[in-house]
């Protein structure tokens, strides 16, 4: 379901002057652009190191797939809130910054409702009374916002913008929705892989740090006989008081204890 029948959205009036052969040729060209973009999606997993780079690629393919588009932005959600936001052009960054600072706009609406949002005259669109006029003053008048949905729910949204008024018609929206289906899967899988990598780095850092902390806990417990929790709280307090990391405090405690042990051995020889 779409929200196309809203003030400022288009219908199909933008191509009324076409002959049937001209329309067929245009649609064939648009179908080719869509097919190329979807094919590119299946290959994009081999070209990114950061998930943001992948998302920029996806947004770029969206501009290619949807007729009339001048730029695109893509937002991934995490726990229902926007998490990663990328854009293909500076003007998109400006527009989306306005949207998220206001908490109002077509991308937010698309992600929240799971339905496409289309407008051909943002400055006069009553759905976003604060966002629309500001976008219009920046020379951006048309938008197509598409939710990125997997079988289990909305994972984000894609914003496609154009400077011209009434740039997106119902066919453009249809093409966008066809592109959004594989795009959603691609970005969601990339998000999972990115999170897996992030988890790996944090777990590994924690596992590398933990031994020295436990040794420091043992040192403090040997002195005071207290529990491990009490010893760790002492380390944490020292960390906060000295404005250094817990591992730094722990390493210092261990180093000092080893130094004393060596000195004791030396004096006994």
């Amino acid at each position: 379901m779409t929200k196309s029948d809203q003030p400022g959205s288009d219908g199909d009036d933008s191509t009324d002057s076409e002959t049937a052969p001209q329309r067929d040729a245009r649609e064939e060209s648009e179908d080719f652009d869509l097919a190329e973009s979807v094919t590119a999606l299946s290959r994009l997993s081999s070209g990114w190191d950061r998930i943001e780079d992948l998302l920029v690629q996806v947004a770029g393919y969206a501009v290619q797939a949807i007729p009339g588009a001048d730029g695109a932005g893509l937002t991934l959600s995490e726990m229902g809130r926007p998490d990663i936001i990328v854009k293909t052009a500076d003007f998109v960054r400006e527009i989306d910054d306005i949207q998220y600072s206001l908490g109002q706009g077509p991308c937010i609406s698309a992600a929240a409702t799971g339905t496409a949002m289309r407008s051909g005259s943002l400055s006069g669109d009553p759905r976003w009374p604060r966002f629309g006029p500001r976008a219009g003053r920046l020379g951006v008048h048309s938008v197509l916002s598409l939710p990125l949905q997997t079988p289990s729910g909305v994972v984000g949204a894609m914003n496609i913008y154009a400077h011209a008024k009434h740039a997106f018609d119902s066919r453009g929206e249809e093409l966008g929705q066809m592109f959004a289906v594989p795009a959603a899967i691609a970005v969601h899988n990339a998000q999972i892989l990115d999170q897996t990598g992030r988890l790996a780095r944090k777990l590994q850092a924690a596992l590398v740090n933990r031994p020295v902390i436990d040794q420091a806990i043992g040192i403090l417990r040997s002195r005071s006989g207290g529990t491990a929790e009490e010893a760790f709280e002492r380390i944490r307090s020292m960390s906060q008081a000295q404005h250094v990391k817990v591992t730094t405090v722990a390493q210092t405690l261990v180093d000092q204890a080893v130094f004393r042990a060596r000195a004791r051995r030396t004096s006994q020889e």
Partner: protein
Amino acid sequence: MSPADPLADQLAELTDALDEPGADLGAIIAVLADDVRGAVGSFLGLTIHLAVEGIPFLLTAIGGEHIYAATTSLRIPLHVPGSPAAGHIIFYAKNANAFSGLAHDAGRSPALTLHIILDQDLPQETDSVETNGHADQRDINQAIGVLIERGQLPDQAREQLTADAAENNIPVAEVARRLLNTLAPTPPGKTG
């Protein structure tokens, strides 16, 4: 104590070791599991296998015994360049081919420099799903700290624990725990 308690304790201790504002390993794992569940409807759970300098660490983070119902698994390597740790994460799902799309994308990512593996890690009923590894290392390292404070160098402390374990035919971690249990509280008025 239920399986969930030692898991939460382990993740809390590891989060403490990270010492990063806002970092909560339990929450990170929960979000990851939630996202995998969003992509794979029959997702059952995940296990994390890591080794740091040869010492293994196993974490059944999500799913517990439910993972025995898995008919498909996806193993993704966890490798951080320059880090002494390495291992893998295994996702489990009930429906065959559930991970085919994710496997395809994972296999093409340059961020994952090692090969991903499908369906080679289906858990057997005899496999333990309890968390282990970290608790043993925690107690061993605390015991090493005790011995260092008493005048031993770190290598000597490890050797003593190992020798005591061999002499008594018990695991090193058990030797460590017995040592820690001997620590007496300091009387009031004295400081450590």
